């Protein structure tokens, strides 16, 4: 073997032995998008500063006697530009000046702000809807309407839609968030999520931000020892009187957690034919009987496999929670109507300030009203007909498809500021559609 071949073989052998953690493309995209946004903001700040300096300079020439005023303009400009250049995460933390108590808005907003479609949009085959890019281009994104805007989740990062761009929401590291409630704005941000790193002992909690302070309320675990929950989707609403969480979760037996509750510190374990095969840190390989360790309910889970379920959790008192199983395996949307948190069901659609009976608003010929939203300019409806999803509003009726012409299977209407938009479910995931005009 020549030296070339020897080196080649050696490098291949050595290279193969390098232990690599799995690469996650979404994590790469998040890092890239965050840097891009930071750079854009920096450039915006610098551009703004330059622009104001130019205007200030011109004013100084035109109005030579107004030095005092132009100095003030520069000062303000510098302050604003400086604010613009702050890190994204830091940006949303300036809440110390927030005043007054939060109150829920239960009437659809009539704000005149509109979603800018100047950037990040792709034309749809079914104009007038256009697809808005998510906060991390190309990454799998889940959307949820919240207050008068929409939040997007990419992996463990959360973003909120401003008038024309996405901005990362500042959330404490201590919580792995599953749902965000922006119903009364970011200064009173409310989040639900997991607290703690250990899958066996982590707790579901709701955290409420007031000013700079976060207050936490634990949601009691209602599962018997050994069963663990993985929440795939959730909605949260918190009012002054109530906390409501709707979620879809997968319940499964975790043999390590089961052993942990029995005081066994195993490093790995698996269940097979009613037995738990475990590797104990001290005793080595050990076999336990599932029937002896687990309750009948847990043993039944182990036999039947994981179960998906939908749940509504409510509390008007920190220590008292009610749990209602739901039949639908789609996440149940929540809205605040007349000060009360209401959950959508097969009979009614719910948005903030409105609860509509599906049968009463469904268009003729439609088989199912998926969603309806009343706005000051009319009613927007999303419904199924001929196996397709359609939208009907001010601009007439259109079949809803994604930009890549994927069929839409489900959807949700909502407002981003005052504009109606659609979160459409396709086989490839969710897309956000806004009116293209």
């Amino acid at each position, binding site marked *: 073997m020549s030296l070339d071949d020897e080196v080649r073989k050696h490098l291949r052998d050595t290279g193969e032995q390098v232990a*690599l953690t799995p690469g996650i493309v979404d994590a790469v995209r998040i890092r890239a998008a965050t840097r891009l946004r930071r750079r854009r903001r920096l450039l915006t700040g610098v551009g703004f500063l330059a622009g104001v300096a130019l205007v200030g300079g011109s004013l100084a020439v035109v109005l030579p006697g107004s030095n005092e005023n132009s100095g003030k303009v520069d000062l303000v400009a510098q302050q604003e530009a400086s604010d613009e250049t702050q890190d994204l995460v830091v940006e949303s933390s300036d809440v110390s000046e927030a005043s007054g108590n939060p109150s829920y808005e239960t009437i659809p907003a009539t704000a005149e702000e509109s979603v800018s479609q100047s950037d990040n949009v792709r034309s749809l085959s079914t104009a007038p809807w256009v697809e808005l890019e998510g906060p991390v281009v190309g990454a799998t994104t889940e959307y949820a309407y919240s207050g008068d805007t929409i939040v997007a989740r990419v992996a463990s990062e959360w973003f909120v839609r401003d008038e024309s761009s996405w901005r990362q929401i500042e959330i404490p590291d201590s919580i792995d968030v599953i749902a965000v409630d922006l119903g009364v704005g970011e200064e009173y941000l409310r989040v639900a999520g997991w607290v703690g790193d250990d899958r066996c002992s982590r707790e579901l909690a709701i955290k409420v931000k007031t000013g700079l302070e976060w207050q936490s309320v634990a949601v009691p675990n209602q599962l018997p020892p050994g069963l663990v929950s993985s929440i795939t989707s959730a909605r949260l609403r918190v009012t002054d009187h109530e906390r409501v969480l709707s979620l879809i979760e997968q319940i499964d037996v975790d043999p390590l957690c089961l052993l942990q509750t029995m005081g066994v510190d195993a490093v790995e374990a698996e269940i097979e034919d009613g037995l738990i095969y475990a590797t104990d840190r001290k005793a080595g390989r050990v076999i336990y009987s599932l029937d002896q360790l687990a309750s009948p309910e847990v043993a039944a889970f182990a036999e039947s496999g994981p179960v998906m379920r939908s749940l509504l959790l409510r509390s008007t008192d920190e220590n008292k929670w009610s749990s209602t199983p739901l039949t639908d395996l789609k996440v149940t949307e929540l809205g605040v109507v007349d000060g009360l948190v209401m959950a959508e069901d097969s009979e009614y659609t719910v948005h903030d300030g409105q609860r509509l009976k599906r049968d009463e608003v469904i268009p003729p010929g439609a088989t199912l009203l998926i969603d309806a939203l009343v706005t000051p300019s009319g009613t927007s409806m999303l419904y199924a007909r001929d196996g397709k999803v359609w939208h009907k509003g001010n601009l007439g009726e259109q079949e809803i498809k994604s930009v890549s012409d994927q069929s839409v299977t489900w959807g949700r209407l909502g407002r981003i500021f005052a504009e109606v938009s659609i979160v459409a479910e396709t086989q490839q995931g969710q897309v956000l559609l806004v009116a293209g005009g």
Partner: protein
Amino acid sequence: MTNDSRRQDRISSAERWSQAGGNGDFDSFYAENRDQIARALSLSLRNPDLGAEAADEAFVRACQRWPEVATFANPQGWVYRVGMNWARSWLRRTRREREKRALIVKEEMAEDPIVDVDLERAMATLTPGHRTVVVARFFMGWSIQETAEALGLRPGTVKSRLSRALKQLAGELEDSSSGMEVPKPKEDFDES
């Protein structure tokens, strides 16, 4: 897989990314190349953790400029070079701390019995610049021209570095078989 077939695969991949364009293709590029480039960087830097970190950093930069990077003849080469440059900068920045802690070189790669220990020791004596060229040529399977483009060197420089590196490796292997003391590994990445 031979170098030729590997090269052919790579060329067709680059054409595919370039022709398809768009951001979605970054996912395919990442999936197909991330591990290979992370391994190449680990070998060049002789530090798996730093190699993986450098690869991640380079892929983030590739993602930011993907529409442009996708049109390059050898996007992998660009990522490899960006990763090496980032690692070199990092090593320069942290040199003082590392000198205190003396942690840069990990010998864990040489501990496995299936690896040729003599050759691994000989590889460790190469300068970082020479090792980078050797890894690009023999691990990534790039031609002299591709290696030159990827590393921003002249083809003549690549040839001479390769030639000197192989000569040095042959000498080291000869010395180790005759029982001579193996020189200390080169650890200084400040060299360009």
